[in-house]
């Protein structure tokens, strides 16, 4: 499944990184601990988090994640969004809680 498809199905807002919408999704990872994501997430996963600072994109890029979903309508920092354009990794925003969006994404991907 491509990132574009989860954007459409889950009604996500694209905050940055549009050029990465054709990235292929291999799974999902849910965590707000950056070292946990660094240590355990895998390439191609969608990362669901409430963290909004620039290091989120540094990790997404180093781990070659497919996209980031920021929950509860939180606003990502400007430098995160700027880097997302360069890295071509979509930053997606949802008003839903982590629990809700994770359940929906899980059902889509299973």
């Amino acid at each position, binding site marked *: 499944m491509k990132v574009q498809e989860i954007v459409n199905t889950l009604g996500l807002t694209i905050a940055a990184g549009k050029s990465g919408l054709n990235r292929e999704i291999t799974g999902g990872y849910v965590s707000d601990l*950056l*070292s946990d994501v*660094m*240590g355990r997430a895998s390439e191609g996963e969608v990362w669901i*988090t409430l963290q909004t600072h*620039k*290091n989120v994109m540094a990790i997404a890029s180093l*781990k070659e994640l497919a996209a980031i979903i920021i929950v509860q309508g939180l606003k990502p920092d400007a*430098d995160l969004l700027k880097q997302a354009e360069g890295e071509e990794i979509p930053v997606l925003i949802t008003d839903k809680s982590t629990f809700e969006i994770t359940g929906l994404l899980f059902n889509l991907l299973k």
Partner: protein
Amino acid sequence: MQFEYKIQGGDFANAGTASSNVKKVLKQINVDAKIIKRIVVALYEAEINVCAHAFLGKVMVNITPEKIEIDVIDKGPGIQNIDLAMEEGFSTASPAVREMGFGAGMGLPNIKRNTDEMQIESEVNKGTSLRFVNYLISSI
């Protein structure tokens, strides 16, 4: 090939610069993707450790056909008890650092898990020297 990067304590916005550059270089010289991933995790964690705990640090990278050796040397408070610091979940990070999602006590264990050799020396109130090595020949 040798590279050197500087890290300023507290400068989280630039954390990951060394790992990102090293990743590009290793890709260019066609190192196995699995090995690159391990090196990048270890180096990123090391960069974050300097940002979170030290005043100033430098990363020295030496790449040969057989291996990559990385030294991360900082001036800072040092580590009181290295055995404790190596334990998963132990952290002395500040509340501000924890709020960013760092400081979960996973950094040094992540480094150990993702490197072939790792040594750490520290002197309290002076600083910490971390050295790790990854072999570039893919195993099986």
